[in-house]
């Protein structure tokens, strides 16, 4: 996997994870996620934004990854979502690395389920864990010609730990088992 981070990889029939250097195939992934039993598909696309806590005038982010651990982590996250919401249909988690220009997607989560409740909740779970657990770093480049690593991150977390700690928005935080 780590040797060819260029196209999504099927790991399990109903989970699809991948690391890619190309544009993320958003509509293909949404089509893939639809199954006859699933009436709800929730998609999250994280796109390069013109500002961050560090910088205004962002024109590009260069994503660096510990390549060979990305798909394993994405796969653990997809499995964690399915453990928690067994009714999920399909789960696709893709991360793009390399230089991504303003407005293009760097990360994609697609989750299908029979009903919207679990599709929304599981989609939120997946993107939250991607942002906590997947070894990818962002170097922002600005209109002023400067660039720098995004400095406001958190220590990378294990998927199992982050999954235990995760709770739906609005629910009181549970203690970590």
């Amino acid at each position: 996997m780590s040797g060819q981070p260029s196209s999504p990889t099927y790991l399990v029939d109903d989970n699809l994870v991948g690391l890619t250097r190309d544009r993320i195939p958003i509509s293909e992934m949404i089509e893939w996620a639809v199954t006859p039993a699933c009436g709800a598909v929730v998609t999250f696309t994280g796109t390069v934004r013109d500002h961050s806590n560090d910088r205004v005038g962002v024109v590009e982010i260069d994503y660096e990854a510990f390549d060979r651990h990305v798909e394993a982590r994405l796969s653990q996250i997809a499995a964690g979502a399915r453990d928690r919401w067994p009714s999920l249909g399909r789960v696709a988690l893709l991360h793009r690395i390399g230089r991504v220009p303003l407005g293009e997607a760097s990360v994609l989560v697609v989750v299908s389920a029979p009903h919207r409740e679990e599709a929304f909740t599981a989609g939120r779970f997946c993107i939250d864990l991607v942002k906590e657990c997947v070894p990818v770093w962002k170097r922002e480049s600005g209109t002023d010609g400067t660039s720098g690593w995004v400095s406001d991150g958190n220590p990378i977390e294990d998927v199992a730990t982050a999954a235990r700690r995760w709770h739906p928005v609005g629910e009181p935080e549970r203690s970590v088992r």
Partner: protein
Amino acid sequence: MPTILLFASAREAAGRAADMIPGSTLGEVLDEARLRFGGEFARVLAASRVWINGEMLHGDVDGIPCRAGDEIAVLPPISGG
């Protein structure tokens, strides 16, 4: 001799993505890395996670034994997505 892998700001501070660093414990390897790579690297390391062979380490890790072929990765904080 263990291999150390450096990412993002750790790589940039050290001026390289990987190195071979002697040491029989993780503490010895990281001490030597601080010596070789300097103060900015040491600052990044202090905020980073360290994995050995893909496994995250917790708590006091300096005494963990290192062998030739071990892969020590320094992972700065991530901001994700």
